[in-house]
């Protein structure tokens, strides 16, 4: 066992350097081959949705878990991406693929603006500012009927001519891998160091030479850009958009996934999505009871395991390392080391 892990460690060594976790690389590898075994259209669709939420949760965590600002309007930026991709196809005649890119860029720009808006705000005020911007966006989407068709809904052309789920599956898988790698690389780079520094103590970060504003804006821009991209995918996958896509309800859903996954980990959100979305689907028959269970589960997790799945994984791995089953390879361990007590 130990030797296997060590040799795997060698293979993944360069990846780990970039902050890409071997277990996630394995997961992606497995996901690549899923359609070979699962030919069931519904399961594929469920996986598509799960991956989509996983991607969103990762992008959300990139802000919440690193610079410690909860973008409580996150769904609206995803929705904005959906609408801008859809409308760019309908009104500008772009191909849906270009639409996705257009959406990513546009929402990235809006994220830039949001970053500028929230510069001076901290904590709950920044979260509320993002939320208010989102609510305003949603109201605009509902009211600008000439452009968006408002609450009647906007029909959006699909990405593929075929109606099978497979192409969508590989598209979203590619997007999610891209998102993960991008976020993992950034967050393990110098920029990531700056993100975490300003997330934990802005003043100390500034006095160490970190220009908080710049990194806050970079973070918002990237996170929103990815939300826009995923939103664009949503648009062309589902085929119809209503302002409800921008609803706070969806932000809560993404937030729960990312928190259950574990804050500040990037990968936690993806794993949580792959578990939670199917689980919720499985329980659909319970109607309200399902949502009550969902609420209760949320409460129990927050009370008893606030570090989420990632925390569970880490403590599990720590336990194994202590038992000597796994080699202690990490240079930067998150475990609580024994501190020396004195000079």
């Amino acid at each position, binding site marked *: 066992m130990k030797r296997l892990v060590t040799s795997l460690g060698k293979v993944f060594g360069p990846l780990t350097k970039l902050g890409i976790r071997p277990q996630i690389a394995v997961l992606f590898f497995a996901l690549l081959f899923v359609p070979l075994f699962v030919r069931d259209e519904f399961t594929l669709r469920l996986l598509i949705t799960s991956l989509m939420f996983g991607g969103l949760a990762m992008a959300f965590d990139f802000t919440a878990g690193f610079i410690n600002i909860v973008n409580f309007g996150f769904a609206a930026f995803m929705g904005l991406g959906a609408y801008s991709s859809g409308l760019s196809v309908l009104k500008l005649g772009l191909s849906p693929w270009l639409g996705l890119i257009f959406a990513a860029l546009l929402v990235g720009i809006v994220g830039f603006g949001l970053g500028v808006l929230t510069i001076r705000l901290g904590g709950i005020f920044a979260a509320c500012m993002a939320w208010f911007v989102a609510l305003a966006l949603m109201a605009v989407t509902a009211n600008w009927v000439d452009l968006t068709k408002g609450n009647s809904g906007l029909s959006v052309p699909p990405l593929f001519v075929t109606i099978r789920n497979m192409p969508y599956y590989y598209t979203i898988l590619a997007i999610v891998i891209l998102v993960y790698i991008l976020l993992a690389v950034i967050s393990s780079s110098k920029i990531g160091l700056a993100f975490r520094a300003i997330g934990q103590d802005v003043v100390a970060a500034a006095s160490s030479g970190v220009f908080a504003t710049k990194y806050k804006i970079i973070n918002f821009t990237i996170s929103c850009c990815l939300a826009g991209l995923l939103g664009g995918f949503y648009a062309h996958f589902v085929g119809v958009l209503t302002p409800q896509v921008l609803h706070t309800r969806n932000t809560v859903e993404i937030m729960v996934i990312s928190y259950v996954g574990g804050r500040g980990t990037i990968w936690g959100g993806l794993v949580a999505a792959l578990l939670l979305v199917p689980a919720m689907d499985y329980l659909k028959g319970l109607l309200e009871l399902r949502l009550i269970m969902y609420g209760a589960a949320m409460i129990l997790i927050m009370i008893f395991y606030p570090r989420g799945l990632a925390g569970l994984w880490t403590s599990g791995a720590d336990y194994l390392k202590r038992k000597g089953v796994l080699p202690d390879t990490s240079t930067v361990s998150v475990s*609580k080391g*024994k*501190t020396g*007590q*004195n000079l």
Partner: protein
Amino acid sequence: MLEIRQLDVSYGYLQVIWGVSLKINEGEVVAILGTNGAGKTTLLKTVMGLLTASQGTITFLGEEITNLPTFKLIKRGLSFVSEERNLFPAMTVFENLILGAYTVRDKKKINDALEYVFTLFPRLAERKNQLAGTMSGGERQMLAIARGLMHGPRMLILDEPSMGLSPMNVEAVFETITRLRSGQTTIVIVEQNVNTTLRIADRAYVLEQGRIVLEGTSAELRSNDQVREMYLGIC
């Protein structure tokens, strides 16, 4: 009056206090000395129910008080002036003092206590209506001590009352302690200012890495070589 037996305290996995036992008699001034991070604050907080003990017992006036919630200890006559002062910054000096007497229901007793602390610290009487958050460091410390006296405690525990104060204010604080002592209040004091502390204390304990390593009267300790080297800086 207060007795601690074989106390262990940990933060998570990290044990900080190891089998500490000590005893404080009525009317004494006892100092607890120790290097930074020796666990002095931890010890006091555990006595006050702000932290939980994993092992051992604490008795106060013959009754066991181990791990009782803080507010019950206040009712029994303990009082704690913490390192961080813990004042209510958006309330006036007067309101802070009134809250000090939260456990006292008798209006007259409250008024007497107010009068007493105002004679101790005339400065507070002048600043009765100033918000605590706007007071200077020295004034805050006075307020914290005064507030700790408001419910007429039988034992007052002070954690580094002179920390961060200018020499003049330090002087004032120690003067107050001397005066309290003559007022029959038992006092436990934790200080870095070893020199001065040993001058006013009857007895002292030395805590090191969470263990009691020395104890004795002030005079004994002052002449102890180890103490002289470690704390008095005399080599």
